[in-house]
């Protein structure tokens, strides 16, 4: 599959000043407790007071990032809406479940239940843009965003007149989610300040984050500065399999690793994945700039969305910000 996905616009709500790109890393936001929560923008810009009153953070966030992304692309109604989320709206799920337990299954509020369905953001954006076209939600952990992009590539290579697709990924952090994941050693035992995450690559665990990342993609380059050519998803690869897959993807584009100017890398400070990261970086040319981002975004299943937004930002400004 060779259909390039041109990124017409990218919108990210994250723990950094990314929604308003002008102030990205000005200043860089940090956390000392291992939990990077998003900076909430003004959600009333895209969501009416009547609708917003019931909505949880994740729903507001997903809708706003998606709608702004479309607005930035100059698209009123996209030709498809394809979104990925590994955990959906965690707050709504927690609220309904705890209420159900506390109230012993009596007199339960339907709103949390409805909003806990994984495709609720999809449904809302479809309603708001009157988009009756293809609509899909992927919920496969760390592949959720990538699957939405792969599906977009597939869709644009099929017969038809689809042109602008809204894709994206989002995941939410809650204090309960953090507490629970700590118990399976997901996070660092001794939590470093977030800017120092990657200096602690000798211990297991990472830090937590959240975000919503949307991309209007097209088969028409327009004014795009960045296009996705290949998407490969590997299931528990060995270091060799990762290197081979990287070489394979590059050779499909008639490139070698020495041709790569920038590697945007999702290294997250967890010593248990160094066996993958170290050879990958060692394999790069000395002239390749390695850009990490999880010290800014935290780790979550769709954090690659932050990496993709950052890649587009770098292409747009022709500059790698120091972080």
């Amino acid at each position: 599959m060779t259909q390039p996905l041109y990124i017409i616009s990218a919108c990210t709500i994250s723990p950094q000043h990314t929604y308003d790109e002008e102030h990205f890393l000005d200043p860089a936001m940090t956390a000392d407790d291992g939990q990077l929560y998003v900076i909430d923008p003004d959600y009333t810009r895209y969501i009416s007071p009547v609708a917003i009153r019931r909505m949880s953070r994740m729903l507001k966030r997903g809708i706003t990032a998606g709608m702004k992304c479309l607005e930035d692309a100059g698209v009123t109604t996209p030709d498809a809406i394809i979104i990925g989320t590994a955990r959906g709206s965690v707050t709504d799920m927690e609220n309904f479940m705890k209420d159900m337990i506390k109230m012993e299954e009596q007199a339960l509020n339907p709103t949390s239940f409805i909003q806990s369905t994984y495709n609720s953001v999809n449904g809302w954006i479809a309603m708001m843009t009157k988009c009756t076209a293809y609509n899909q939600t992927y919920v496969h952990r760390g592949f959720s965003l990538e699957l939405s992009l792969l599906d977009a590539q597939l869709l644009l290579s099929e017969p038809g007149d689809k042109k602008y697709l809204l894709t994206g990924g989002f995941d939410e952090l809650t204090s309960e989610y953090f507490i629970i994941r700590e118990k399976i050693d997901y996070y660092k035992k001794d939590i470093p300040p977030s800017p120092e995450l990657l200096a602690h690559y000798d211990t297991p665990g990472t830090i937590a984050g959240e975000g919503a990342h949307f991309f209007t993609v097209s088969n028409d380059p327009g004014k795009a500065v960045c296009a996705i050519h290949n998407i490969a998803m590997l299931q528990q690869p060995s270091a060799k399999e990762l290197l081979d897959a990287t070489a394979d993807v590059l050779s499909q584009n008639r490139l070698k690793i020495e041709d790569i100017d920038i590697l945007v890398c999702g290294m997250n400070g967890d010593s248990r994945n160094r066996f993958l990261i170290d050879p990958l970086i060692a394999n790069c040319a000395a002239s390749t700039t390695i850009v990490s981002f999880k010290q800014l975004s935290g780790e979550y299943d769709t954090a690659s969305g932050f990496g993709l937004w950052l890649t587009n930002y770098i292409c747009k400004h022709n500059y790698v910000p120091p972080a």
Partner: protein
Amino acid sequence: MAERVVVTGIGIISALGRGKNAHIGPMRRSQGGIHAITHLRSVHAPEFVLGEINMSNDDLAKLIGLPTGDNGYTRTTLLSLAAMSELLNDVDISLLREEPFAFINANTVGGMSKMEDIYMDVLAPGTRPENIKYIDTLDCAESTENVRRHYGLKPLMATISTACSSSSNSLMLGARMIKSGMVKRAVCGGSDALSRFTLNGFYSLKNVDKKPCKPFDQNRGGLNIGEAAGFCLLESEPAAIARGAKIIAVLTGYANTNDAYHPTAPSPNGDGAYLTMKQALEMASLQPGDIGYINAHGTATINNDLAEGRAIQKLFGTQPPPFSSTKPFTGHTLAAAGIIEAIFSMWAMEQQMVIPNLNFETQMEELDISPAPSLIENVLINHVLSNSFGFGGSNVSLVFSKP
């Protein structure tokens, strides 16, 4: 690369049982699988009837050859494994180990049936050791990963969650991947296990009938929740023929559209359902009159049956092909509904029968059409339409044709 996509394997488990005979027999005898609750521990157990599978988690574990008790497997995973093992009665696993394929699963609440029982313990300090292994089982992909791992497979994987249309979407994605040449074959389907979360969620929407449901009936009172799992093997037709596979049906048409109307209710005049069915027929290059049987979504909620009924009438006229909802047999199995009802549609076509719409008595006053209340045999069915419409306005229609 526009080869036809065919179905060459089926695996299913529902309230009616496992495999073809367990389903077709009761369908012929109009014996529904909705009954009083035996396994789900809910305060509402005495009030509700559900499409519960008559196997405990230990029964399912023994079936698959897993240890019983606290084995780290949620009911959702166990059902998925059971359906996969059924599929592997038809399909040699070496086929899946030797060549690249896609594995597309679907789910709405992941391992919720376990997590809701242990959540407060998992949250509190000093979580019991036996509960720690369930911590990462809440999400929708846990059953996908477990099936892959159990059978030692390395497919291109995806898990979809679009509410009640989820596993219809799995089939559609599998077909699209095969047509594009991405893979030669795909195992597609979905599962959902009963949970108090889902039962109470739908109950809070006042969408649940405490008696067996009555789809398309004037006096319908809502749905019965069910649980099930199903998978189909899809292949490109040349690949199937090359290995001498028996072709069960051809997936000739599919469509995915969105109602864009309301978070949980379809547009009352059925615009969304109409558009989806029409697009699926167009893709299959068929006229409405070519369809021999419609397996409706037919949840027996006020909103769905009104919207879907109107849409069927608008597209097919006042003399539509026979149509029925099979949800009185299995309950509404949520993410599994699409796949199991696609399977029923294919079996109906193979058996040349119209599956009855149980519990139907009174035509809806808004409609001039009614479902088939009893079994019809020896019906010429060359093409069958299967609908699944979900929350978030997610609509999918599939068309299967005789090979």
